[in-house]
């Protein structure tokens, strides 16, 4: 059997190897995060859940997708036990879309399948994420956080509309029904 010093040397060599591995891992994570500007949704914005329906932004008439005068696309969605308003969200293909979510009741969350769009939706906060959709067609946007017995029914669709079919109305609004 080898002496204690030799054992210690093998362990230190392994520890150095492991630390190198962890460092490489962190460099890759930080590097890709900076290069592709990937950040977890950390948009720290308060909104009172008790008066959400009275807020200017999240009243029923203002929900869904809207193209602003400067051409930017924003979609506003309310997540509530046990539905999304609206249930189908039209977004343009190959254009940056900003999603803004809020809830008047309990914790919800969403993901859009096959994309990096994923956020919790907490009573008291506006959750904001943005994404570009390169492929036209429908994809699912289920509620991914337990919100009560009807949770499994809370399931929305994101419809990615090709430029030829993308026709905002006079106020800049686009809905699934009209595209």
């Amino acid at each position, binding site marked *: 059997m080898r002496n204690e010093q030799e054992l210690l040397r093998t362990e230190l060599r392994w520890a150095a190897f492991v630390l190198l591995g962890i460092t490489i891992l962190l460099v890759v994570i930080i590097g890709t995060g900076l290069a592709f500007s*990937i950040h977890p949704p950390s948009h720290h914005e308060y909104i009172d859940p008790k008066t959400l329906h009275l807020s200017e932004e999240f009243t029923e008439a203002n929900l869904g997708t809207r193209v602003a005068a400067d051409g930017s696309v924003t979609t506003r969605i309310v997540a509530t036990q046990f539905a999304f308003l609206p249930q189908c969200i039209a977004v343009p293909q190959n254009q940056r879309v900003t999603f803004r979510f809020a809830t008047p009741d309990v914790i919800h969350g969403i993901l859009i399948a096959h994309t990096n769009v994923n956020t919790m939706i907490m009573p008291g906060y506006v959750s904001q994420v943005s994404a570009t959709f390169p492929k036209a067609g429908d994809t699912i946007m289920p509620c*991914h956080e337990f919100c009560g017995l009807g949770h*499994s029914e809370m399931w929305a669709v994101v419809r990615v509309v090709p430029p030829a079919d993308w026709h905002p109305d006079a106020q800049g609004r686009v809905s699934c029904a009209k595209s």
Partner: protein
Amino acid sequence: MPKVERLTLAHLWVAFAAFFLAAILGVWQMWVRSPIPAPLATPHNYFLSLTAHGTTMAYVVTTFFAMGFGYFVAQTALARPLPAPGLAWVGFWLAILGVIMAVVPIALGDASVLYTFYPPLTASVWYYLGLVLVVVGSWLWAGLMIAAMTAWKRENPGRPVPLAMYATVANAILWLWTTVGVAAELLFQVIPAAMGWTQTIDTGLSRTLFSWTLHAIVYFWLIPAYIAFYTLLPQAAGGRLYSDTMGRLTFIFFLLYSLPVGLHHLFMDPEHSASFKFLQMLLTAFVTLPTLLTVFTITASLEIAGRLRGGRGLFGWIAALPWERPMVLATGLALVMLGFGGFGGIINMSYGMNAMVHNTSWVTAHFHLILGGSVVIMYFAIAYEIWPKLTGRMPMSVRPIRLQLWTWFIGMMVTTLPWHWLGILGQPRRVSTFNYSDPMVIGWSHYVLISLAGAVILLFSAALLIWNLATLYRGAATADRQVGYALAVHPPQRVPAALNGFGLWNALVLVLMAAAYGYPIGQFFLHDSPQALIHHVDLER
């Protein structure tokens, strides 16, 4: 002596009986999620079952196992009677009372909030009070572990605390730190709401407090498995522990780095800024350190055993190992599952990649491989190892024991590998039923069916575990009641005070926690953060 053996057996039997019942629920849940129509499949029943499964596996099985095994180690590794065994029984019965108080409202459907609570959803107050009692029972255990080590050190001045006990006390101290977060959430926020004293709750604060507990609790579950790796496995394999010091450092690293990292569970949350998420991601990366050090030490210890048994060459020692022994086999299988689960975990903690998998079946796969895989298979191995010492009877045959370990491993792999893929496809967790007629969902069905098959294998294995433990009472009597804790290649004569106690490390935990959680928790008091209305699930029926 027989009294302490009864104490250990009582804890372990509660753990494994609860484990078997929760495994039945798990299979049924998998069935409900599959395209095959399941009996009694209503949302009410599904979320009741999911709450029972999670609460049992995460809080009952693990806590009772850690307590029972801790009492066993304190008695055998220190070779002295447990201080105040009466208090240990008080802790046991408090925890039993707590389990009953929690299970009754779950069974009535008055506590379907899942084991992670999700306020402003609010369950029957009995559910939370029951869990508080389980934790209070475990605090008594933690105090007794510290008292046992302190008494031994007084009687043996200057001598190193045996590694098995040092690690057990590390876990007891980790557990005390861990439970602070959830205890604060329950006592100051959730229970006042459940009692009807408050009408609103700060959900950002409650999630942050829960995150304090949520990662470190995993290491509380895991440390008994690591104790077996370091102190029981080398002996079972016929070798020596490569390094006692590395063992001590590993358990110290667990104490330091499993706490200030909980915010990685909240990467997708809107109530925290990117900077603290980033800081805790960096700290999370260092949680891999103790596990990777352990992999080295354990592999080196096994190599010693393999070479002593005549194994030659670069890999020949692996074949020479006594794989027929349950402890050796279980360790091999545990390390494979830890590998898959660990790599999945590194993806989860990656600041950028978390968005692809957060709250999908991927995460369910990750923690089933860790807790349901590596951790519990080592719980089985520990039980098979110490049962003969507790009952004084040898196993009649080792074959059903090996079959049980293999089927658990195969079942867990078959269940969780498809979950990873489903998670990447976007299948959310915690959903009771899917609309398989939806063209965007139909492609999931065969993966779900494979997982269901895996779950059936797991249920068979869980039943075989109970059968194996019961038949361990019927074997031939043995006089060999000595537990063989592994000797190190160079057994330590003296160790530095820092590696023989926890004072310095507790101070460091405090500093790390203040840095990592000071502002994330403090912000809810500094700013006028919004409150959410309480939603009572127990009044909705």
